């Protein structure tokens, strides 16, 4: 960095997949009294597992409703908002959120110009990168992922997104828009964009982003439905709470640097590592001052997340209240599993790996499995979940029903309940759930230019329903 003095950059941060707390309006008003240069929120993540990315469905979080009070304040004060949208963050997820955003703008009479940045990659572009570029290696060692990624892995994946860094967001903000909305994005990158654009050192922008990315979770008491405020400058940043009854403390902020991260002080990001080993935290008037973060430059890589279909799930649930059966719950379910998997009608599918069946006994070891130290049901009732994953819905449901019946009428030593062994709480007794996915891609893609593949599509909202989308723009060559 140049070392020239820079103006402070003030950020108001929250989480847009979590509904705001009841006092959000007064908190936002207080933050704007202190001054806000951008309102920033993350709304994507891999925490919900691979299902959403693979299926294209949307978690029922209503992210547009969650951002409404913040967008109102940002537009009134003429400062930009920066959001990632859509949880899994593919194009289909982003689009479903933008439709709700359209409705919100329409209802309020707002006409914002928004830089929309899609972060889904086409299979063709990723295949070309795998074939022609440097190796695409797993981000998580020891996870059993392909090393390096192959063309076959790319061909099997349902959908792939990249966690875009701050650079495409900076390119969006440079266009003077009212806001930037992205698909899947690096959480802290959203917070880093405006500060970096205004000359704040990368290390400070990243450290502040880490503190703000979960909203009020970094306050004491922690609550992600609340917002959080920070003022960044050339030497560090100061965190304050816009909420009455919540405050940042040294302990709350340091402990937040641990949150969801596998290392307490080192965090690999696109283009570098955030190093907090020398970070300092001090009480100042009305807040906590944070300094001392370092940024170690590294070659730029994008984290990719891709989901592959593994089959279809059907389940059945049985409630067990019979004492003699609870004593032998495991051997009873083992027998039903065995009877199902060895039935001639299922033998070929089992042998080919197209049918898997698992019984999970809630009240015994359903959560920890083999690690559960208690080997008997200790309560007076338990639940048995029959969980089948097969290549087709029909096969999964047939096997789940077969297992249900074995459990319901199967004999066991000392049986008195010869009309039926368990309660059936669900109707239908076999529930078709949905397709099942895995994260087959969780890899690092080296890129020379972090912006080129993620162009900014400046759009006036609300969009007309018939407005043509142009997905090709989002899929420019990597």
């Amino acid at each position: 960095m140049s070392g020239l003095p820079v103006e402070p950059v003030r950020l108001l941060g929250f989480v847009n997949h979590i509904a705001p707390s009841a006092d959000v309006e007064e908190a936002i008003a207080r933050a704007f009294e202190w001054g806000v240069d951008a309102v920033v929120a993350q709304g994507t993540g891999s925490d919900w597992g691979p299902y959403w990315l693979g299926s294209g469905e949307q978690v029922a979080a209503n992210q547009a409703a969650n951002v409404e009070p913040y967008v109102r304040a940002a537009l009134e004060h003429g400062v930009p908002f920066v959001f990632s949208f859509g949880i899994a963050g593919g194009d289909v997820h982003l689009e479903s959120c933008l439709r709700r955003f359209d409705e919100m703008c329409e209802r309020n009479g707002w006409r914002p110009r928004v830089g929309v940045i899609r972060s889904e990659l086409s299979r063709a572009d990723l295949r070309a990168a795998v074939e022609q570029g440097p190796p695409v290696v797993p981000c998580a060692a020891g996870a059993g992922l392909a090393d390096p990624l192959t063309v076959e892995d790319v061909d099997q994946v349902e959908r792939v997104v990249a966690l875009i860094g701050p650079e495409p967001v900076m390119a969006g903000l440079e266009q003077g828009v009212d806001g930037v909305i992205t698909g899947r994005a690096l959480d802290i990158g959203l917070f880093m964009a405006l500060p970096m654009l205004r000359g704040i050192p990368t290390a400070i922008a990243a450290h502040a982003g880490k503190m703000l990315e979960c909203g009020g979770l970094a306050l004491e008491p922690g609550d992600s439905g609340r917002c959080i405020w920070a003022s960044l400058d050339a030497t560090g940043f100061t965190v304050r709470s816009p909420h009455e009854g919540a405050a940042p403390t040294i302990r709350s902020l340091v402990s937040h640097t641990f949150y969801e991260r596998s290392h307490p002080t080192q965090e690999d990001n696109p283009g570098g590592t955030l190093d907090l080993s020398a970070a300092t935290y001090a009480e100042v008037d009305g807040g906590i001052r944070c300094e001392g973060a370092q940024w170690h430059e590294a070659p730029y890589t994008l984290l990719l997340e891709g989901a592959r279909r593994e089959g279809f799930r059907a389940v059945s649930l049985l409630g067990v209240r019979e004492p003699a059966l609870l004593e032998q719950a495991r051997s009873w379910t083992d027998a039903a599993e065995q009877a199902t998997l060895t039935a001639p009608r299922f033998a070929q599918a089992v042998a080919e790996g197209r049918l898997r069946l698992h019984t999970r006994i809630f009240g015994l070891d359903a959560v920890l499995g083999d690690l559960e130290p208690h080997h008997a049901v200790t309560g007076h009732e338990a639940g048995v979940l029959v969980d089948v994953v097969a290549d087709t819905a029909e096969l999964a449901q047939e096997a789940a029903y077969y297992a249900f019946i074995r459990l319901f009428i199967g004999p066991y030593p000392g049986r008195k309940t010869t009309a039926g062994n368990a309660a059936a709480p669900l109707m239908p007794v076999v529930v078709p759930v949905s397709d099942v996915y895995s994260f087959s891609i969780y890899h690092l893609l080296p890129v020379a230019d972090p912006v080129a593949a993620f162009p900014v599509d400046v759009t006036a909202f609300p969009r007309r329903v018939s407005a043509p989308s142009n997905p090709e723009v989002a899929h420019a060559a990597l």
Partner: protein
Amino acid sequence: MRLYDCADIIRSKNAGPFAVTIDLFFGDEERYRMARESALLTPEGVAAAYDVAVDRVKGVWWDDRIRAAKVSLMRWSSSTDPYCADLFGAHLHTPLAAGSLTGEAS
């Protein structure tokens, strides 16, 4: 004493789909020291608690400023496994929390 009884806060959470991290916070210096000096909160002790090879443990770290420890390991059943029972990793602290800090049977 069990770790569960020694720590004020024991929170476990995904650190990406394939790793779990367990943050431990202690209410006073005495309890923090007891935990820090234990054999449980070492890579070998963590590996034993989870019945995994020690190379699955990514690390055990301490922060004296806030009397906290952090333990990270690769998940034995990640959110990518169709039969993963704990999508967010919120209950994966249990085997560690049940461990003894003083070598007594828990």
